[in-house]
C-alpha cells in the first residue's frame, strides 16, 4: 500500500527529471520498445498465425483478421483443431462475424450451425481449460507489495503474470490463459465439452475475466482488432446480428504457412525473459509531465503485451 509513498516519490522524481530534462528524460514505454535489440523479439512461426480473409472494404481495400495461436502447454487441443479446420477449409463456407456486443465480444464462424462437424477433431472438456503444473508451487501474494513486476496483484486469481508472452494466472497447482482485451476464445454451449474451435470470439471491451477457466483461450488478435471493434453492434439479442444486418463475411481462413510467402503476415512478440521486457514495465510507472501520479502497479489486462509487425526483411 504505497500510494502515498509513490506520490512523494513521484514529486521527487518529477523535480529531478525536470532538472535533468535537457540531458536524459526517462524513455517512454514505446521508446523502450522502439530501441529494443532484435534478440529481444521472437518472430512468430507462420504455423502459429491464422489469417481470416474478409470481404473487401467499400473502398476496395483488403481486410483481414490475424490471430496468433496459443503456445503450449495451454489449450493445445483446440489449437490443433483450429489448424485442421483452416486446412480443411471450414471457414471458407458460410462464415461471418455475426455477433458484435459492444464492451464485450465479437464472435465469428458459421452462424447457422447446421453443417456436420468436421471429422477428426479432438474431443475437449472442462479439464482442458487449464494446465496442471508439474508440481505444486507455493505463491506469495503480490497484492501485499504493490510494485509493477511480473507478479501482478490479481482479483481473479492468487497471481497473474506474463509467461512466454501470454497473460496467465495460477493458483499454484494449475495455470491458465486470461480473457484480456484482444484474446481469442472458443464459444461453446452449456455443456463444456461442446466447443471444438470452429466458433471463435475476441474480447473488444473490458476484460471479462469471469470467463477464465470456463472457456478455452486459444490465442490473440494481432491484426484487425480495431476493425472488429468498429463494426456496427448487432441489434439482435446479446449483440447477435439481426435479420437484415450485414455482417463482415469471411472468405477463407488459412495458416500463414499455407499462404504464398509474399502474402504471409509477419509478426514478432517481445520475449518475456528479455531485458527489454523489464525496462518496458519500468517505463510504465515513470511519472511524466502529463501523469504526475502514475500508479505503482497495473491490472495485467490493462497492459497490451508488445506484439509488432516485422518490417522489411
Amino acid at each position, binding site marked *: 500500500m504505497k500510494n502515498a509513498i509513490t506520490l512523494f516519490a513521484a514529486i521527487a522524481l518529477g523535480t529531478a527529471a525536470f532538472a535533468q530534462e535537457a540531458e536524459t528524460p526517462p524513455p517512454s514505454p514505446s521508446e523502450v520498445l522502439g530501441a529494443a535489440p532484435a534478440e529481444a523479439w521472437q518472430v512468430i512461426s507462420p504455423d502459429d498465425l491464422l489469417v481470416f480473409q474478409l470481404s473487401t472494404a467499400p473502398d476496395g481495400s483488403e481486410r483481414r483478421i490475424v490471430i496468433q495461436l496459443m503456445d503450449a502447454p495451454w489449450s493445445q487441443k483446440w489449437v490443433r483443431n483450429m489448424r485442421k479446420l483452416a486446412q480443411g477449409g471450414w471457414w471458407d463456407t458460410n462464415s461471418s462475424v455475426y455477433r458484435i456486443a459492444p464492451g464485450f465480444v465479437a464472435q465469428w464462424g458459421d452462424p447457422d450451425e447446421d453443417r456436420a462437424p468436421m471429422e477428426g477433431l479432438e474431443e475437449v472438456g*472442462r479439464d482442458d481449460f487449464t494446465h496442471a503444473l508439474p508440481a505444486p508451487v507455493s505463491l506469495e501474494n503480490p497484492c501485499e507489495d504493490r510494485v509493477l513486476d511480473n507478479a501482478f496483484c490479481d*482479483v481473479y486469481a492468487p497471481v497473474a503474470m506474463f509467461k512466454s508472452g501470454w497473460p496467465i494466472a495460477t493458483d499454484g497447482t494449475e495455470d491458465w490463459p486470461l480473457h484480456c482485451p484482444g484474446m481469442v476464445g472458443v*464459444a461453446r*454451449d452449456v455443456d463444456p465439452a461442446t466447443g471444438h474451435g470452429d466458433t471463435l470470439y475476441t474480447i473488444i*471491451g473490458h476484460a471479462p475475466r469471469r470467463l*477464465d*477457466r470456463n472457456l478455452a483461450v486459444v490465442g490473440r488478435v494481432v491484426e484487425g482488432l480495431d476493425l472488429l471493434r468498429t463494426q456496427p453492434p448487432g441489434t439482435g439479442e446479446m449483440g447477435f446480428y439481426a435479420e437484415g444486418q450485414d455482417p463482415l463475411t469471411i472468405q477463407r481462413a488459412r495458416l500463414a504457412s499455407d499462404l504464398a510467402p509474399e502474402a504471409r503476415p509477419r509478426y514478432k512478440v517481445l520475449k518475456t525473459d528479455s531485458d527489454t521486457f523489464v525496462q518496458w514495465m519500468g517505463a510504465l510507472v515513470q511519472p511524466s509531465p502529463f501523469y504526475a501520479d502514475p500508479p505503482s502497479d497495473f491490472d495485467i489486462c490493462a497492459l497490451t503485451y508488445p506484439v509488432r509487425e516485422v518490417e522489411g526483411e
Partner: protein
Amino acid sequence: MLREGALALAALALAAPGIAQDAARSPGEIVDAAPAGDWVTIAPENLLVMTLAPDAEGNPRKVLIQLIGAPFSQGWVDNIRTLARDHYWDGMAILRVQDNYVAQWGQPDPGMGIAEKPVPEGLKVMSEAEYTAGSPNWLTSSTLRATREPQVIGDWPAPMLTDPYADYGTFRDGWPIAGIQQMHIARQWPVHCYGMVGVGRGNPPDTGDGSQLYAVIGHAPRHLDRNLAVVGRVVEGIEHLSSLPRGKGPASYYADPAKRVPILSVRIAADLPEGERPHLEYLSTDSDSFAQYADARANRRDPFFVASAGGADICNIPVPIRSVAE
C-alpha cells in the same frame, strides 16, 4: 455459444420451482428481482443528453451521460452544466477516437489544427486536489481489510473488494470508487471504468475546465485515476462512441475532418420539455440487491459456468442502470 443471456432465461426457468435455488441466480436475475425501493431515480439535473448527427443510414444517435454527485468533481460538474446551458458543444464534434482507450469531444487540443472555441465566463478553476475527496473518519481504522470477494465490511454500506490500484475498491452513492486508507490519509476517488467520462486537460497545473470531455471505450485505463477528473458515465448509447472509426492522425485525432461526427446538441435533461426527458434509475449500491448482485458477479453459479472466480474487479461490477417509462 457464449450465450450468457439466453442461459439466464434457462436458469430462471430452473430456479422457479424453489426459493432454495436462490444461490444459482445470475446477476441479471438478481437485478430483475430487485424491489422498486432499491432503485434510485437519476435527477434530470444530473443527466446530460448529447445528440450526435444521425449515422449513414439516418438512424438517430443519442448518448446519455449521468453526472457524478458530491463529493466528487463537483466544480467540473458545475462547469459542464454551465457549458451545456450556454449550448457550448452544439456544432462541435467528436475529434478523437483511440482504439481500446477513449473517444473525445469538444474543445480541441492545441496543435491539432482546429480552432479553439472560447468558453463562457465564470467557469470554476479546479485544482488537482479535487481529483480525490475525503472519506469518512472511521475508514482510518486499521481494521479495514478488503478481500477478493466483494463484501460489506463494518459500517461502510456498499461491498468492498481488493483493488490492484488502491487499498480497496468499493461503491459510493452508485459510483465505482477506489480509496487509500493510511495512518494520516483517507481519500477516495471515482475510477476510470468502461463508459466513464472524464475531463481532458493540458499538463498540470492546468486541470481542464470541462469543455473537452472523453469517454472510456476500452479496458479500464485505471492509470488515469487521480490524474484526470472523472465527472460521469455514459448510461445509454456508449456504442455510438465505441464503434466509431478510429482516428488516423496524431493521438488518434481524425486527420480527415469529414470523419468527425458532428454534435448537434448537448442539453441538461432538466432543461428539456417534460415529454423529451429520459427517465433512468440506478440500483442503489447500498442495497441488499446490489450486495447479492456483486457477489454473483464474483461467483458465477448460473449453469454456463463450470469455474467460479471468487472475485471481480471494480470495473467488472457495473452499476445496473434501467430506463423507466413514466
